[in-house]
């Protein structure tokens, strides 16, 4: 079930329901109950729960260290914040650069660097692609977002070109702006953000959605996202036939030292990049580099997007990520886990089932176009 109300907002939602959005929308939650038939009576309980969630998120945001960093965004290393149990969405303003090079950490039996475990991005969620901590433009509820100068927030995820903007062709720029202009009052189905219907997060949005788990097997890296699952094959097999288009695309990778290099084709382009509506088409080609730090604590996702249908030239995105371990407290956004019950003393982290589709056929139960 997806108790998390499907933000596709019919205007205007009560504050707690619009909340900071992040904790309150279509996250694949452990299924508590709701069949469509039971939806009504469950609703009241969910609302109570959501009010609580909103309060927690509010508290965490109030504590978030926006103004701690004294250096220009993106230029200086910032220590990974350890644990703390915060479910806050906006976290660090800056992130360390990680050089590609040798891997000196643990390895798996097939020789791969061992990067298994739980990860999440360190900056902000998918509210805004180019001003990650800036909220959703045009949001009628400002909800205490920082109103200060742009420089006080994390830099754009677009790290090339230098202006931080995606080099869209004019038609594509117009389409992105049209999506954003209607996001808060979607009058047509295409203005509903696909995640609100429990669609897979796809590439690259899954990396700025909730925390996720990486599991590795001989010749294979598997990403278990909050919404959707992605396989990266390392065995040199050819891509799927070009006419098969997928939410999580088709991924062929190889390790170069500390860097997982992945060639991504067969993208269906449907997931969009976030609530600001940036996108790639089904003709797109993405080359990803996951550059892992040898201390095992973080990695940077550096991906080049090429698409002659949508962009005027290839461009690059950077998304920093941090590891979560059994020493961290599970939380409802970045580290959605529980500790396993067992007879020993060791803290064993478990991922819960993430399934979010049963109320979201068509427009979903609540993801209705407005107007």
């Amino acid at each position, binding site marked *: 079930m997806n108790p998390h109300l499907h933000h596709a907002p019919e205007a205007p939602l009560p504050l707690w329901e619009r909340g900071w959005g992040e904790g309150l929308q279509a996250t694949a939650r452990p299924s508590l109950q709701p069949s469509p038939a039971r939806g009504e009576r469950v609703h009241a309980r969910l609302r109570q729960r959501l009010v609580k969630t909103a309060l927690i998120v509010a508290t965490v945001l109030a504590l978030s260290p926006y103004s701690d960093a004294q250096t220009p965004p993106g230029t200086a290393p910032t220590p990974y914040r350890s644990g703390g149990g915060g479910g806050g969405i906006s976290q660090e303003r800056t992130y360390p650069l990680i050089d590609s090079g040798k891997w000196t950490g643990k390895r798996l039996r097939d020789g791969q660097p061992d990067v298994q475990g739980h990860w999440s991005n360190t900056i902000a969620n998918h509210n805004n692609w180019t001003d990650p901590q800036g909220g959703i433009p045009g949001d009628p509820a400002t909800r205490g977002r920082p109103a200060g100068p742009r420089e006080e927030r994390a830099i754009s995820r677009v790290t090339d070109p230098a202006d931080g903007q995606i080099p869209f062709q004019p038609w594509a720029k117009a389409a992105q702006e049209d999506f954003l202009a209607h996001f808060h009052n979607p009058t047509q189905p295409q203005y509903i953000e696909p995640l609100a219907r429990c669609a897979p997060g796809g590439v690259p949005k899954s990396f700025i959605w909730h925390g996720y788990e990486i599991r590795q097997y001989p010749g294979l890296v598997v990403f278990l996202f909050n919404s959707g*699952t992605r396989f990266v094959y390392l065995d040199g097999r*050819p891509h799927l036939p070009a006419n098969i288009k997928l939410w999580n695309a088709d991924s062929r990778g190889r390790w170069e030292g500390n860097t997982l290099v992945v060639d991504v084709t067969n993208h269906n382009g*449907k997931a969009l990049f976030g609530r600001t509506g940036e*996108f790639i088409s089904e003709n797109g080609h993405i080359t990803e580099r996951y550059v892992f730090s040898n201390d095992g604590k973080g990695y940077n996702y550096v991906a080049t997007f090429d698409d002659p249908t949508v962009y005027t030239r290839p461009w690059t995105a950077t998304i920093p990520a941090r590891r979560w371990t059994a020493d961290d407290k599970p939380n409802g956004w970045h580290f959605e886990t529980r500790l396993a019950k067992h007879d020993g003393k060791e803290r064993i982290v478990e991922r819960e089932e993430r399934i979010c589709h049963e109320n979201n056929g068509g427009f979903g139960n609540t993801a209705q176009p407005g107007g």
Partner: protein
Amino acid sequence: MKLPSLLALGATVFALMAGAAGAAAPVGKIPRLPNGKPDFSGIWETTSAADHGLEPHGGRRDAPPFAGIVDGGSIPYLPKALEQRRKNFEQREQADPRLKCYTLGVPRGVYYREPFQLLQRAEDLTQVFQFGHSVRTIATNGTQHPDNPNDWWLGDSRGRWDGDTLVVDVKHFNDETWLDRSGNFHSDALHVVERWRYLDANTIEYRATLEDPQVYSRPWSLSVLLHRHREANFQLVENYCYTLDYDAHYPPRPPK
């Protein structure tokens, strides 16, 4: 007999049924993990028509004739549940949860006619179903069912090794899934014990014993064979079929 003894007897009978399969050694060598346990990694699919209906049935427009996979032939429904099953059957062309692309659940996902992949580490098995691309984790690290469970689509799966047989105890289900296209069903009190074992390197015998005191009068078992996909470069192709109703709205298209 006092209630606890009855429960104990019931549990014993259930355990015996769940373990009833003969444990003949597999033919030839089977894949193993470094820790010596059988390695079920691979992409698997049954050739059985079980998903059309677990019980024996003649041919009809929406199903081939089939001798069934239920031990003893039929599912021991309680009278009230049998009536629900009859209704489900009548409405199957609209009411089967698979038509909405709901996660199929356990055990249906195992004998549904789309491949699933098993990925295995010493501490767990990960089962990824092509249908819906949903993910089930079977813990094999000695952990137990949680004290504060939810109702999960795929239940909570705790495995242990009985020789070369993987025995999985699964409970804490929701009641949204069916067992097949014929309306066979369960409640959220469903408890499944699965036994997975190699017959040979490319064939798994899968047995499941189901108990559900709200629906069945006694535990019952089913069994199918699973075959390894050995086609060159065979892979799962994600099937997020629940997006089909709306996916045509994305992404924006260039002007013609």
